[in-house]
């Protein structure tokens, strides 16, 4: 009876001091160094996983090495000051994870665990701003479904340099990996299950020498995006109503829709309503802070009983100038190629433009802009804009098709 009581008692909860002391030798600073100068180009954190020869960190911490392996290499620095070189073993770009390998054993791996209940205390360790190892205390805000279940909300303070460090539950097991912050104690953690999957899938030798790592990044992003699009296509889309249209509403749990109507002047002779829906699937692509994975669709309705048709169309045309928000440079993407169609949708004709541009270093990856404007009405205007970044162009077209098929004119 006593033995049963001893074994059935849950492990004692630890405070931040105890978690720090237990793990201070198992959390490292990860540095990306320039081969020419030998100086740090970026820093992050990492922690021991797998067989003790491996460090987990974020993909964005080591993305410079992926883009330019001939210029950069990765090292670790322990809390005690020991240093050594690391190699890239595996990466999960969609979830912003990387697995690094060391020649020698680094220590005892950190145990991983599932997410504690919402509101439970959690502890993030890392090296903020190159100032030394610290621990930040906060609480678990739960898995965010608007991020495709790939982020945990952490109500604690993460700072640059802590990326890739472990987040512990109160029993000292890693429940996730620090990844991003929105400031004001709103931070984000990658659930540890994605890291477990990466460790299970990774070999011990890493990538072959000379392998095109950017092509591998593109392959992973496209596989993730294709799965995402397939989920969207398979689902039943709830609708929303905007004046005389029934339209696709929140087509995925990853999407949030907001009223985005501009505040009009009191003397405006027209009405304008705008709804903007967007996901939060920001997939980090490279060191220039380019993100892909964005899905945005917006609806604009314009009407007036006071403007004459020429006035109305002058206004309507002036609003028909939507663009993709992301504006990478010439080294990253090609120019857009656009084409125009007049498409019949639910007995109405839309002047539709479809544009695409490609990522130069990431084969098969495109950005897509679709914008369609209702024609043929003197006092009503409506346009829909759909943008997707970092997708396979051909795979994304069925989404546009389903989108148009779900637009219904209700006279």
């Amino acid at each position, binding site marked *: 009876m006593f033995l049963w009581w001893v074994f059935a008692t849950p492990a004692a909860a630890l405070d931040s001091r105890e978690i720090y002391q237990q793990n201070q030798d198992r959390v490292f600073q990860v540095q990306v160094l320039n081969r020419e100068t030998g100086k740090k180009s970026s820093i992050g954190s990492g922690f021991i996983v797998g067989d003790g020869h491996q460090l987990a960190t974020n993909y964005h911490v080591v993305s410079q090495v992926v883009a330019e392996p001939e210029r950069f290499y990765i090292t670790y620095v322990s809390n005690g000051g020991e240093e050594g070189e690391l190699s890239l073993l595996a990466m999960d770009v969609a979830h912003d994870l990387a697995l690094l390998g060391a020649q020698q054993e680094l220590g005892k791996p950190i145990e991983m665990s599932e997410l504690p209940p919402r509101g439970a205390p959690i502890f993030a360790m890392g090296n903020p701003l190159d100032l030394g190892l610290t621990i930040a205390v906060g609480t678990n805000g739960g898995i965010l479904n608007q991020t495709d279940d790939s982020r945990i909300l952490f109500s604690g303070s993460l700072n640059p340099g802590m990326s890739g460090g472990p987040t512990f539950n109160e029993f000292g097991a890693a429940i996730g990996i620090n990844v991003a912050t929105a400031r004001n104690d709103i931070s984000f953690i990658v659930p540890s299950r994605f890291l477990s999957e990466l460790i299970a899938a990774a070999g011990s030798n890493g990538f072959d020498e000379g392998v095109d790592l950017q092509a591998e990044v593109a392959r992973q992003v496209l596989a993730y995006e294709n799965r995402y699009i397939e989920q969207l296509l398979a689902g039943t889309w709830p609708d929303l109503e905007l004046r005389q249209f029934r339209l696709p509403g929140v087509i995925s749990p990853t999407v949030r829709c907001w009223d985005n109507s501009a505040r009009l002047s009191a003397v405006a002779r027209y009405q304008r309503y705008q709804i903007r829906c967007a996901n939060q699937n920001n997939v980090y692509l490279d060191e220039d802070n380019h993100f892909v994975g964005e899905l945005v669709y917006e609806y604009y309705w314009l009407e007036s009983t006071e403007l004459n048709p020429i006035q109305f169309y002058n206004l309507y045309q002036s609003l028909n100038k939507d663009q993709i928000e992301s504006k990478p440079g010439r080294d990253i993407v090609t*120019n857009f190629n*656009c084409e125009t*169609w007049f498409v019949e949708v639910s007995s109405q004709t839309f002047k539709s433009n479809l544009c695409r541009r490609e990522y130069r270093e990431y084969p098969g990856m495109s950005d897509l802009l679709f914008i369609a404007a209702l024609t043929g009405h003197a006092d009503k205007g409506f346009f829909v804009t759909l943008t997707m970044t970092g997708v396979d162009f051909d795979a994304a077209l069925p989404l546009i098709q389903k989108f148009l098929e779900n637009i219904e004119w209700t006279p």
Partner: protein
Amino acid sequence: MDSVILEINARGLHRYEPIKTGITRIGRALDNDIILSDPTVAPHHLKIIRHADQSIELINLAAVNPTRVDDQPIDSETFRGLPLQITVGRVQAQLLPRDYPVAATRPLAGNGNRAHLFGHVGWALLLVLLCLLVGGLDFFLSSYNSFKWSDLLKYLLRETVFTIGAFVLVLSILERLLVNRWEIRQLVTSVCLVYLLSAVVSMLADNLDYLLSASWPGSLLYFGWYLAIIPGAIALYLIHISHLTRERSLALALLIASPIALPSILQSAQMQSLFDNFSPTANYHYQLSYLNWHLRDSVDIDTFIEQARKLEAGTAAD
């Protein structure tokens, strides 16, 4: 060769001096028979001697900028045939026989011809009123909010009166410098006509782009406006109103139009794309038209998707 005339080229209107038998002295000093005030002319530059046998002897007196005849420097030379091109300093002159033919008389624009659009004060006023009307219409058609009459007046003053006034002022100064004359009524009429034409071209550009689902009509009109229509209008004005020669008018028109045309052309999206062949934004056909006239057929969703699959990848910039 009963009598000989020296035609001296001057700005706008030439000066004519009869050369009588005997000696005629030309130079900048006041004791010459023909005084040329140009600083490149020597005080005593050239002596012209008309001999009894009708021959003409030219004697250069200038050490600096010596006299040239038919572009050749001379010391002293006798000529028997006319005309002769003479360069004195930088002043161009011609020795011509008195019976040398002159160009046909050009009718004055407006005067004595009430139907003539240019130069008649009634036409000028009517066109100014039309410009104000078009300016007001432009304001009205681009006003999406309720407006006050004072807003309209401000717009007309700023956009129409100032634009037309500035062009008339600049062009009249240029005309004064070029041909020594003011032709204010003709200028007002011409500037108003170009202003009205600009409104038509602007409206046409958008509707043509929509009709053809292409951007080349708008681009063509944009470049045509600055490279052909504006210089062409100025050249026509200089030929028909200022009565300059075609060649000179064309050269001057290009010169006058260039301060307007060059900044606009250089800042246009099309020129920017020539200088920098990369754009982070999508240049799609955003034009919308109430008339909704388009040559491209409407397609159903399936056909659109099928055709969209053939949309080629974007091209990489250098």
